[in-house]
C-alpha cells in the first residue's frame, strides 16, 4: 500500500540505508566527502601495516622453542619469554625460594581485587592491608618459619617493581597529607617550608632524586651507618611522590566549603580534631581518583631505578637480552613488558575512571 494513511507511516520501518550495518557505516565512516576519503586512506594504511604485523606476531613466530630454532625464522621469537620467565620475574631471588615472591604477589593481587569493591571500604580493610603488607614483607625477607633470609640486595624483578610503587605510595601518602595541611596553614614559617619543599621536588626530575639517593645519602649518614640501595631508592621515591600527593590533597582540601571549617570551630573542635573528623575524611574521598593517577605514575616511574642499577623487571629483561644466546630479540622482550605494564596500568586507569563517575554521582 503506497497511498497509506498516518498509521501506516508510523508502522513503516526506517529506510534500510539509515539503519543496521549500512546505516552505521554511512553515519560513522562515510558521512561526507572528507570523512569518506579519510576512512579510505586510513584503511589503506592499516592494510599496509597490520597484515605483516600479524604475520610477524602470530604466523611466522615461535613461542616455546630453543634459541637455536629462532635463528631460522622470519617472525617473532617469543620463546625468549618462557625460557627466561623466572629470571625476568624474580631476578636474583634464590632459585628454590621463588615461591615466596610469587605468593607475595598473589596475596597483593588478592588484596587489590578485594579492595576494588566499595562495599569493603571499612576499617577492617585497613587492617587486612596492614596484615597483608607484613606477611608480604615476611615472605620476601624470610627469617621466620624456617624460611632462609633473603637480603634486599637480592630482591629483584617484578616484585621489586610492585613493592617500590606500593610502599612508595603507602609511605608518601601521610607525608603528602602533612605537606598539604602545612601548605594551607596560616603559620608563615610552616607554610613556607612546605611550599619550598613541594615546589623544589616538583621542579626537578625523579632521576636527580635517585642520583641523590645513590651518591649523596651515604654521605649524609654518620660513619659506620649505612643502609642498602633498594631502601635508599625507596626513600627517594617516597620523597618524590609525597610532593605530588600534597598537591592533589591540597586540591581536595580547597574543595571543602568554608562552612565545614566554621561549623567545626563553632562546635569548639581543636585543629587536630577538625582535620581528623571533619575535613580530611571529606577531602580524601574527593581525591581518590587523582590518587590512583599518582599510583599509576609511581608504578611507571619505578622503572627509572634501572638507571641507578637496581634490578627491577626492566633491568632483568635487559640482562636477559645481554645473554649472547638471546641477543637481538629486544622487540619481543620489550613488547612483552609493554603488555605487562599496560595491563596493570590500564586496569588502574579504568578503575579510577569508574570510581570518579560513581563518587561524582553521589553528590
Amino acid at each position, binding site marked *: 500500500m503506497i497511498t497509506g494513511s498516518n498509521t501506516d507511516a508510523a508502522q513503516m520501518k526506517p529506510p534500510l540505508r539509515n539503519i543496521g550495518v549500512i546505516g552505521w557505516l554511512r553515519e*560513522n*565512516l562515510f*558521512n561526507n566527502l572528507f*570523512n569518506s576519503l*579519510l*576512512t579510505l586512506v*586510513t*584503511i589503506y594504511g592499516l592494510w599496509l601495516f597490520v597484515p605483516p604485523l600479524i604475520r610477524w606476531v602470530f604466523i611466522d613466530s615461535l613461542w616455546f622453542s630453543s634459541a637455536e630454532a629462532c635463528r631460522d625464522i622470519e617472525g617473532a621469537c617469543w620463546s625468549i619469554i618462557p625460557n627466561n620467565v623466572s629470571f625476568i620475574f624474580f631476578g636474583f631471588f634464590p632459585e628454590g625460594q621463588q615461591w615466596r615472591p610469587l605468593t607475595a604477589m598473589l596475596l597483593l593481587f588478592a588484596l587489590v581485587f578485594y579492595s576494588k569493591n566499595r562495599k569493603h571500604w571499612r576499617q577492617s580493610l585497613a587492617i587486612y592491608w596492614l596484615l597483608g603488607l607484613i606477611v608480604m614483607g615476611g615472605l620476601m625477607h624470610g627469617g621466620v618459619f624456617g624460611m632462609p633470609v633473603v637480603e634486599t640486595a637480592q630482591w629483584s624483578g617484578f616484585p621489586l617493581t610492585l613493592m617500590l610503587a606500593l610502599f612508595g605510595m603507602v609511605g608518601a601518602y601521610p607525608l603528602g597529607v602533612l605537606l598539604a595541611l602545612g601548605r594551607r596553614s*596560616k*603559620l*608563615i*614559617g*610552616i607554610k613556607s*617550608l612546605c611550599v619550598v619543599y613541594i615546589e*623544589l621536588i*616538583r*621542579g*626537578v*626530575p625523579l*632521576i*636527580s632524586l635517585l*642520583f*641523590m639517593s645513590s*651518591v*649523596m645519602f*651515604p*654521605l*649524609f*649518614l*654518620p*660513619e659506620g651507618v649505612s643502609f642498602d640501595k633498594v631502601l635508599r631508592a625507596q626513600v627517594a621515591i617516597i620523597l618524590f611522590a609525597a610532593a605530588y600527593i600534597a598537591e592533589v590533597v591540597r586540591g581536595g582540601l580547597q574543595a571543602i566549603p568554608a562552612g565545614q571549617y566554621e561549623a567545626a570551630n563553632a562546635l569548639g573542635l581543636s585543629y587536630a580534631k577538625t582535620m581528623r573528623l571533619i575535613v580530611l575524611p571529606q577531602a580524601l574521598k574527593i581525591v581518590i581518583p587523582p590518587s590512583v593517577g599518582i599510583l*599509576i605514575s609511581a608504578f*611507571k*616511574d619505578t*622503572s*627509572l631505578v*634501572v*638507571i641507578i642499577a637496581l634490578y627491577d623487571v*626492566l633491568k632483568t629483561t*635487559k640482562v636477559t*637480552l645481554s645473554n649472547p644466546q638471546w641477543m*637481538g630479540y*629486544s*622487540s619481543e622482550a*620489550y*613488547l612483552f*613488558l*609493554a603488555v605487562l*605494564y*599496560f595491563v596493570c*596500568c*590500564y586496569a588502574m*586507569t579504568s578503575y579510577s575512571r569508574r570510581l570518579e563517575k560513581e563518587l561524582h554521582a553521589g553528590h
Partner: protein
Amino acid sequence: MPRRQNDTTAADPPLVPFWHDPAKRGMLLQIVVLLLALGVGYVLVANTQANLQRQSIATGFGFIQHEAGFEIGEPAIPYSAADSYGRALLVGALNTLRVSFTGIIFTLIFGSVVGVARLSRNWLISHLAKVFIEVMQNIPLLLQLFFWYALFYEAFPSPREALNPLRGVFVSNRGLIFGVPIEHPAHGWMLIALLAGIVLWRLLVWWGRGLQERTGTIVPVHRLGIALCLLLSLLVWLAAGAPTAMNMPVFKGFNFQGGMSVSPEFSALLIGLVLYTSAFVAEIVRAGIQSVAHGQVEAAMAIGLRPGQVLHLVIFPQATRVIVPPLTSQMLNLTKNSSLAIAIGYSDFVSVANTTINQTGQAIEGVALIMVVYLFFSLSTSAFMNWYNKKTALVER
C-alpha cells in the same frame, strides 16, 4: 558580660595559659618546627663534612675548570675532551635544550592532531586516536625509549646496506643521514627576506583589522601574509642565482661522509618523548575543545559563520584558556623526562653531570647543579605561565 571581658583584657593578667592561646601556640609550633628543620640540616651537614674529610674529597666548584677528558657526542658548540668540565656541562645543557625544544614543537603539532582526531565524527579515526592515547599513556616512557633504541639497532641495516627512501636520505643503525644545501651567502639574505615578510604580515593583519572595522570588508590577511613571506624568500633566492648545490652524504669506508646526521640516540629519545607526551597533550586538547559549551557553536553557526570561522573565532579562543595551563606543565614534563637520555646514551645535562660525578667524586655539587638547572627551567616556565594567564584571563565586568 561585656564588663568582665573588659576587665580581663585591661587589668588582670590573662586567664588563659599561653599554650591555650592560638597565636602564641602557633608561634611556638613554628619555632619548634624550624628548629627541628635546622637541627636535621645541621646533623646532615656535619655528617657530610666529616665523611668528605675522611674520604678526602675536595668541596666546592673548583673542578669546573679542570680538564674533563671525555668526549661528548653531537656537541652543539665546539667541544673536545681537552676542554673544561664547565664547557662539558654547558654542552650537556645545550643538548637538553635541543632535544626538549625539538620535542616540544613536534609534540604540540602531533598532540593537537591526535586530540582533534579523538573528537572526529569518523569512528575509525577517533578510535585509532583512542587506542594510541591509551597505549602510550600506560607504558613507562623508559621502556618506550629502550624499545625505539633497540629498534634502531636491530631492525635497521648497517651503513653499508642503508635504506635509501628518498634521494640523499639514508637510514641505517648509525642514525638518519640526509643531504643539506652547501652554505651560500644567499641563505642569510633569504632569512632576512623571510623576517621582512613576517613583519609585513603583521602590518597586513593590523591594516586588515582596521579596514574590517571601518567598512566591514574582510581581506584574507593570513593567506596573503604567508604568500608574501614565501614569495619574498623565493625572489631573493632567484636574485642570488638560485644556488642548488647540496652537501650529499657519500658512503666511504665504514660510514657516511658529509651531509647532516642525526644519531640513533637522539632519534630514539625524540620519538619516545614526542609519542609519550603527545598522548597527554591530545587528552588536554580534547578536554579543552569539549569545555567550550555546545551552545556557543550553535550560536556561531546561527549567525552564519562558516565552520572554519567557528573554529577560529569561537572555539579556539575559549579552548586556549583551558588548554594552556596543563599544556605548559606537559612541556615541562617533557623537559624533565628528557633526563632519561642517560639510559640510552644521549649526552644530555644529567648524563654529562653523572659522568662528572663519577670522575671527580663530587656528588653533592653534581646533584646540586642538576637540580638548579632543572629548577631554572621550571621556574622560568611558571613565570611565563603566570604572565600568560594574566594576559588571557577573562576580564570580568
